[in-house]
């Protein structure tokens, strides 16, 4: 049958035009290895975040390190157990009062654009980091100045001792980029460092696949276990599970809810704590909720929460119940404090009565739809209601949750917080100006202990950290529930070692399984 041209065109109007448009809508980037499992030379990791910028001044701890570690060397390197070892800095030493840090750099390192690493390059990077607007810029707030004494010597002068500084220099703060590339203005998308790998732009698709290939002139080939490293941002946890199960990635961070499927699929599981979850009792001076000024009330809150049941219902039982905010990898940790406040609603009621609150009281706490597990808010609300404390849940936007807390809009809140070193934790939740101390509560004992942690000898620091942990636990400044496990999996061809105080292993810690 012969069709008239107009009729023939009409028949394809709904299809051909759209198809043709679709065919011309492709990107210009090169091919990727979607669907391919690693074959010895390639390590593919699923990442729960997408890189925001490759500019080292914008580097951030945790998940984002995976994108920087292949391309940038850091000044120091953290071994999986947290021990600091040399990387770009061969040696480092403090003066007597720990206010001047001297770093001696390697003299055989060249950036991949041919520029030589020297003290000036380190100065440029550290100054950019601390004066820029990156998410971790404030971690270098104690630095007074950075000086290049000679080509391989950097002198960092501090306003006051900072016990976490060396750790920071082995973390996001210590990545060093080529100063020439920084001047070029494209460092955020085209990273140039001296690291074991370089970003292969032709095999990279923004938001989907970042391919790193071996740096042929790298100074430490022992860190180039794979020929190629591919990072695939997969922000949905179910998609991450599917990518692991189908062999698209060799390694992935999963969640308590997706753990069982990966485990039954024969993948290797790694479980380790990095965070604690529970209640931050901000208003310890009772400015907003007078009852919270009474230590017995705060202790009652600790006794009222059925932590084991919450861990089982919310975290599938994958974690450890605790009553302390300091983690097991820190000097402050005391195992006995994990059971300071066993679930005991009768004791909670008794303490409330002793404090003059036998009729209970009300408190408002924020919640975020989609972020707070309904089982969590239901459990907390029910446990506290059982002892007479009424929780009014205030629904806030996800983007306003943290700012609401740090601006002192709530007397208490549930949260999940990273367990860093005692000094980091103190500045996060304990000192008068700590981020999560919006009411600036303090007492002389705490200030004295924190002072020792900052300025004391290593032994004194450890002792003071333990005392501080003991004190804030007894004073019930917080009501921790548990340390949820990070749940990481590798496939049968891959092995890794978790990194202390980090959600994911460092790039250097992967190897093919023998």
């Amino acid at each position, binding site marked *: *049958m012969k*069709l*008239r041209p107009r*009729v023939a065109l*009409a*028949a394809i*109007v*709904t*299809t051909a*035009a*759209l*198809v043709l*448009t*679709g*065919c011309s*809508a*492709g*990107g*210009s*980037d*090169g*091919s*990727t290895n*979607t*669907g391919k499992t690693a074959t010895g030379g390639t390590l593919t990791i699923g990442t729960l975040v*997408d890189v*925001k*910028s490759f500019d080292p001044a914008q580097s951030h701890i945790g998940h984002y390190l995976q994108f920087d570690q292949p391309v940038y060397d850091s000044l120091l390197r953290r071994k999986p157990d947290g021990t600091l070892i040399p990387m770009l800095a061969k040696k480092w030493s403090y003066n007597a009062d720990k206010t001047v840090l001297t770093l001696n750099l390697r003299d055989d390192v060249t950036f991949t654009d041919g520029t030589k690493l020297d003290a000036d390059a380190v100065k440029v990077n550290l100054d950019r980091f601390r004066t820029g*607007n990156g*998410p*971790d*810029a*404030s*971690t270098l707030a104690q630095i007074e100045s950075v000086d290049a004494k000679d080509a391989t010597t950097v002198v960092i002068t501090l306003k006051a001792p900072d016990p976490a500084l060396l750790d920071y220099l082995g973390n996001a703060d210590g990545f060093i980029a080529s100063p020439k590339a920084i001047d070029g203005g494209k460092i*955020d998308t085209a990273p140039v460092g001296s690291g074991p790998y370089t970003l292969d732009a032709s095999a990279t*698709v*923004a*938001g*989907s696949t970042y391919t790193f290939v071996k740096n042929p002139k790298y100074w430490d080939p022992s860190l180039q276990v794979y020929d190629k490293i591919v990072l*695939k941002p*997969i*922000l*949905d946890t*179910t*998609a*991450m599970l*599917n*990518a692991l*199960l*189908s062999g*698209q990635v060799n390694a992935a961070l999963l969640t308590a809810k997706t753990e069982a499927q990966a485990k039954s699929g024969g993948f290797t599981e790694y479980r380790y704590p990095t965070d604690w979850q529970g209640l931050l009792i901000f208003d310890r001076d009772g400015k907003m909720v007078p009852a919270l000024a009474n230590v017995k009330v705060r202790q009652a809150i600790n006794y009222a929460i059925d932590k084991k049941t919450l861990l089982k219902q919310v975290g599938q039982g994958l974690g450890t119940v605790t009553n302390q905010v300091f983690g097991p990898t820190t000097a402050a940790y005391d195992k006995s404090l994990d059971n300071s406040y066993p679930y005991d609603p009768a004791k909670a009621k008794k303490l409330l009565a002793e404090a003059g609150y036998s009729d209970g009281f009300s408190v408002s706490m924020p919640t975020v739809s989609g972020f707070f597990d309904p089982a969590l808010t239901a459990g907390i609300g029910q446990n506290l209601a059982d002892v007479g404390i009424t929780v009014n849940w205030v629904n806030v*936007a*996800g*983007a*306003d949750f*943290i*700012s609401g807390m*740090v601006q002192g809009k709530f007397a208490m809140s549930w949260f999940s917080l990273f367990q860093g070193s005692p000094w980091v934790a103190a500045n*996060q939740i304990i000192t008068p100006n700590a*981020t999560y101390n919006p009411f600036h509560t303090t007492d002389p004992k705490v200030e004295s202990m924190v002072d020792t942690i900052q300025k004391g000898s290593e032994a004194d620091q450890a002792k003071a950290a333990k005392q501080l942990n003991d004190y804030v636990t007894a004073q019930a400044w917080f009501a921790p529930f548990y340390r949820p496990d990070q749940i990481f999996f590798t496939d049968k061809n891959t092995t890794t070692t978790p990194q202390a105080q980090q959600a994911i292993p460092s790039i250097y810690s992967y190897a093919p399984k023998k």
Partner: protein
Amino acid sequence: MFSFIVRRIVSGVVALFVVSSLTFFLLYFSATSVARNILGESATQAQVHQKEIELGLDQPLVGRYLHWLGGVLHGDFGVSWFTSRSVVGSIFDRLPVTLSLVLVTIAIVAIVATLVGVAAAVRRGWIDRLLQIVSIAGSAIPQFVIAIIVVTIFAIKLHWLPATGYVPLGGNPGGWAVSLVLPVVALAISAVASTAQQVRSATINVLSKDYVRTLRSRGLAPREILFRHVLRGAAPAGMTVLSLQFIVMLGGVVVIEQIFALPGMGFLALQSTIQGDMPVLMGVVVYIVLIVVIVNLLVDLAVGWLNPKARVS
């Protein structure tokens, strides 16, 4: 026809202006603490305040709006508050992913729904009954359930297709097609079901018209009547449904992009909404509205071309 096109273009421009302006003002009133979110939890209040000034958040609403509008009229959508990347660059990275997904799906839906719908209308009987059942099932099962089922079978069990990810068309058309199979299937099933129903109804409606009876009485072959006259009469209804499907898909593709880890516009919109990245979100809104306006214009033109009465209305 010329005044018809002009009217449609003018109404499209007005829609673009109204939607983007409304979005801007709505975002202002639901403003989040974006400066704090950019700088991180440990930033001081002074740093946060400084950042707010840097972003112009201390300026009055109208001033900010005019500044944004002035930039857009010059093709400058600004840079992301979170990544400092150009908004247009970010959108052009993501647009091919979403357009590939939606346009391939629409093309497949158009072909399959037309074949099935016309067959059901002409043959009736078991094909028609089967279409009714499949349509109800297809419309009832959510896309994400279909997505999970096809991933489990074809990616995890059989290892035939990738579970996640996107391969750009340029340089690797095969990889591009393979990366789209499962997401397109997940998107297409319910769309085929509902579109085929509409095509069937429209075809039956045209088949019952007097002029079709006249054509039959004049002895024209059934195939000739169908392809020359009936399909032409039924096409506008089919195209209207497809254009609606296209718009619904552009909005709803975010779920599929998330399940298949596709770096598309839906995901960009979701992320920028959660973060409060206003320049990116506004850029996404403008581009999406622009695409919808263009598609509607093309469909209106096609319908007007097929049916001169539509040009008058």
